[in-house]
């Protein structure tokens, strides 16, 4: 049970940590100053949630690992994030579509997790719901602006959707860890989360006049530590200072 809870908590943490790392790359390079602030704020919210989850994962594991041990001293094969969040920022449409696809999953997941039988996860989710609500509102608004804005923005948004759609299947993959957590009342019923996700996607894309891609081949592997080649570079950059000076305080 505690092994499954550790893995489950780590998955939640890794998704949001890697997405935060990607979003942080935009800082100082956004398309307009207000968006620079919004993206950095989003990165900061995700990082805050990741830190709470990593700290809790370390406690569940019981080997004395801290949030930093888990973030900085695991290699790519030990990271359990979905492949969606490690995808490169690309243009602003790619960044916003990536966040939109994630936010539409993250909000109902966090809402459901507030009722988790695990009190700590429920508390962390309770704190995240407020942030996740405005993240989804903001990314939905951009998808609508892009889709129903100019011809160029429409094309860019549709291209981003078509490119990233293959990474959405992984958000709802089932396996033994999730089954055990769901049975224990710790993880929520993911069919309900998926239904909520799908409804948001349909509503927002309809208003944006964008086409929902067909469910074709879905990428997989992230939960088992089988990532794209991007992941090694993300971690190399994130971890290099910490690893170069082992055992010190910062």
């Amino acid at each position, binding site marked *: 049970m505690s092994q499954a809870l550790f893995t489950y908590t780590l998955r939640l943490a890794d998704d949001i940590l890697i997405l935060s*790392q990607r979003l942080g790359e935009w800082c100082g390079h956004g*398309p*307009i100053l207000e968006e620079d602030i919004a993206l*950095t704020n989003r990165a*900061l919210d995700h990082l805050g949630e990741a830190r709470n989850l990593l700290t809790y994962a370390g406690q569940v594991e019981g080997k004395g690992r801290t949030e930093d041990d888990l973030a900085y001293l695991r290699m790519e094969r030990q990271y359990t994030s979905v492949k969606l969040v490690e995808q490169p920022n690309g243009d*602003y449409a790619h960044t916003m579509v990536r966040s939109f696809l994630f936010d539409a999953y993250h909000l109902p997941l966090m809402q459901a997790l507030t009722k988790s039988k695990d009190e700590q996860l429920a508390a962390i989710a309770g704190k995240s719901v407020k942030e996740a609500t405005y993240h989804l509102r903001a990314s939905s608004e951009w998808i609508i602006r892009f889709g129903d*804005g100019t011809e160029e923005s429409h094309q860019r948004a549709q291209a981003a959707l078509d490119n990233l759609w293959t990474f959405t299947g992984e958000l709802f993959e089932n396996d033994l860890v999730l089954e055990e957590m769901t049975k224990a009342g710790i993880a929520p019923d993911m069919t309900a989360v998926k239904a909520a996700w799908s409804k948001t996607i349909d509503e927002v894309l309809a208003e944006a006049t964008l086409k929902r891609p067909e469910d074709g081949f879905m990428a997989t592997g992230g939960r088992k530590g089988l990532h794209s080649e991007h992941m090694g570079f993300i971690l190399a950059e994130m971890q290099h*200072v910490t690893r170069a000076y082992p055992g010190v305080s910062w």
Partner: protein
Amino acid sequence: MTDVKNLEDIFQAKIDAEQKIEPKDWMPDAYRKNLIRQISQHAHSEVVGMLPEGNWISRAPSLKRKAILLAKVQDEAGHGLYLYSAVETMGTSREQTIDDLLSGKAKYSSIFNYPTLTWADIGAVGWLVDGAAIMNQVMLCRTSYGPYARAMVRICKEESFHQRQGYEIMAVLAKGSPEQKEMAQDALNRWWWPSLMMFGPTDANSPHSAQSMKWKIKRQSNDELRQTFIDRTVQQAEVIGLTIPDPDLKWNEETKHYDWGTIDWTEFNNVVAGNGPCNKERLAARNKAHNEGAWVREAAVAYAAKKAKRKAA
């Protein structure tokens, strides 16, 4: 024509009486021009300043430091926004102001043309660069133009948090491993003199200062502010066991200030003239963000127009 003379007298009397000048008040053209230049330079400095610090967000050595740095750089963007708004109160649009930065016509603080090479540079930038900026900004909270003064009050609160977090990074490094201490000392060595240059030319070589002081845009001279900064910072360095890279630095019992060496003004002039280590990169990064963001801004405008039209229909 006596009217203008009268208006100038009323304007100066207001300033002498410590009343704020507000956007709709009459003001001399030169006052307006001077402020537009100064506030827009200040705004650009906040925005360009995001680049050397943003450079370390992906590599901050702990998650706590990463969170603090993200929050700090986000604050700088916010400062840029207030200041662009303050410029708009003087009748210059944000687009025009930003275009002047992108074309290289407008200046920003030269300090941001230096590179952040190691993690300790993030400490040094907070401690020294924000520390030097605060000296100036605290003075500007009392500047004569109302919108600028009010923006500065808010900015100062955040900047003092920035300065403290930078100093704390340095303190932790200085009492850490020998390698960490070396990293901190190296950063101090590189950032010390450029930080002193931030206060601008010496009073003897600062031609606009007298007028700015009369209009109470500035209230303390470059040299006074620089000396206060040195006196304060030398003591802070001592507390954490780092050495200021100035062999001439010595306490003067008579003046109750530190005596110190000479700034290399050739270096200063070179960086101002565009030949600093990162001038080209900084401007290129701002231009790239602006150009690549054009379609995003266009989409937002087009969508807003469509929405307004549908609402009207």
